[in-house]
């Protein structure tokens, strides 16, 4: 039995090469108004992998999902232009969006995956704005599905998925049964450019709209952000003349 549908869960993040990110004056967060947003790079890799699996005929349908305000539909369209078949936009805006964290998102993705009977849920390993690296893992836990995180190679073998994972010690290969959750790491693939014809076709593909309440998910956050600060400005260094001076200074400030 070949897997029916794969869910690719996307995140919209602050543009990766944006030069200056500012902390809000009240230290409650980072300024996002007017800052260019785009699809999280690891999510692009996730989309590419899902579309590749469909091209190899391992799966029948790829659904692109994302949570957030209206802006997020553009990200879903990009995924559709890369080859996803349809999209789902879970609308979260205003205060709920600001408070939204990995747990809330994972609850939404888990609910959707169950509802639509997905065989695979693929996400980027982490979002480059908050670097949480939690959503994939939480989604798997909520669904009680096996997870293959930090994937640098994915092969479908019947009812199982072989995942080569990038870990601190090197590479680990595991075999997990489907349905499963995978998170994409940098070297999994190189995302394709969306072609002009596909961008045009994507305009006609369906993006369904729903709210977290429709899935029975409560968006209340258990995490309260107390404060966001910029990293301390780099202090000037101190030059010393000899190695003895260096050792003395390091001892004096408690480093050794």
């Amino acid at each position, binding site marked *: 039995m070949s897997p029916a549908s794969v869910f690719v869960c996307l995140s919209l993040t602050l543009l990766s090469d944006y030069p200056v990110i500012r902390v809000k004056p009240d230290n409650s967060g980072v300024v996002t108004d007017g800052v260019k947003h785009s699809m999280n790079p690891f999510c692009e890799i996730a989309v590419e992998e899902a579309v590749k699996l469909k091209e190899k005929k391992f799966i029948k349908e790829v659904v692109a999902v994302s949570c957030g305000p209206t802006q997020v539909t553009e990200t879903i369209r990009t995924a559709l232009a890369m080859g996803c078949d349809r999209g789902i936009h879970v609308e979260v805006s205003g205060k709920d969006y600001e408070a939204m964290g990995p747990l809330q998102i994972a609850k939404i993705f888990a609910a959707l995956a169950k509802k639509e009977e997905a065989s695979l849920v693929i996400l980027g390993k982490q979002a480059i704005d908050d670097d949480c690296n939690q959503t994939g893992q939480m989604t798997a836990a909520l669904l009680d599905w096996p997870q293959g995180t930090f994937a640098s190679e994915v092969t479908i073998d019947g009812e199982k998925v072989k995942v080569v994972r990038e870990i601190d010690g090197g590479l680990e290969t595991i075999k997990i049964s489907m349905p499963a959750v995978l998170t994409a790491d940098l070297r999994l693939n190189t995302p394709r*450019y*969306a*072609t*002009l*014809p596909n*961008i*045009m076709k994507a305009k006609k593909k369906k993006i369904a709209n729903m709210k977290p309440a429709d899935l029975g998910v409560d968006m209340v956050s258990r995490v309260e952000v107390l404060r966001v600060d910029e990293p301390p400005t780099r202090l000037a260094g101190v030059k010393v003349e000899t190695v003895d001076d260096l050792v003395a200074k390091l001892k004096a400030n408690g480093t050794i």
Partner: protein
Amino acid sequence: MAFDFAAHEMSPHMAEWDEKEIFPVETMRKAAQLGFGGIYVQPEVGGSGLSRLDTSVIFEALSTGCVSTTAYISIHNMCNWMIDTFGNTEQREKFCPELCTMDKFASYCLTEPGSGSDAASLLTTAKLEGDHYILNGSKAFISGGGDTDVYIVMCRTGGKGPKGISCVVVEKDTPGLSFGKKEKKVGWNSQPTRAVILEDCHVPVTNRLGQEGQGFNIAMRGLNGGRINIASCSLGAAHACVQLARDHLLVRKQFGEALSNNQFLQFKLAEMATKLVASRLLLREAAVALQESRSDAVSLCSMAKLFVTDECFNICNQALQMHGGYGYLKDYAVQQFVRDIRVHQILEGTNEVMRMIIARSLLSESG
């Protein structure tokens, strides 16, 4: 998407293509795979079916990666469109699909050694003999000449003046088709430019686009779009140069502070940016007018070509000046943008001819 393609696939090679005079066939075919081979050609023969405005936006983005290559892609697109628009079904099905994928490349041949601005005075003859035309003459400054597969040639089948001109498609390797030496140019070095020589070149009548005597009309219609495209390339170059200049001003220090603190340079940068935006708006308006076949389209396209190519050249030139001595070195991209877009003020109708067209439109009774 075009911006990404330009940044990743073109920009890193721009200098090398210029220096080694490489015609980047592989990269252009990659671009064709994304749909850039026949942007405003109809989908049923392999094109992307987009509008003139979309096209302008695409060429502007691609030019930030390499003006010379993008300009060639735009010429190729114009030739493809001519066959798509004026060709019959057989011609469209024969040529367009391969042009859209860039399996085959195209060149446009109107200018001759003796007729540039005065294009209607062209001398290349096409004598009808049975089911073939015999072409004799030469064309000058042909982009892609010698390396391309399909040549759209304007030639004289009838009497003097524009009404005697027809348009034929000459395929590579047709006996009687040969090329001059590769020209050494100041810019546009990623595309070869050669004279195209026709000596008793037999071309089947079935390769004629449209009716006899329709050639000049086809040429002029093609040029309206070609002017938008070339101006778009200038715009992309100016956009890139404004960014390069800004980055340099922030980094370079003289007299104890960054150049960006200097009011004259701030004002100059502001003027450059303002003219860039003004150029972009005029160009997009012209593109829309052309798409909608408005009565003022020809005039607007000429105005856009004139204004945009002039202003953008000045912007790029200013950007070079802001780099100081470094701007003159080939290690810095800004000089290549300046060299590459200088010719945009000359080809596709000189900016002087643009003035002629605009004046004629203003002074005519219906204008």
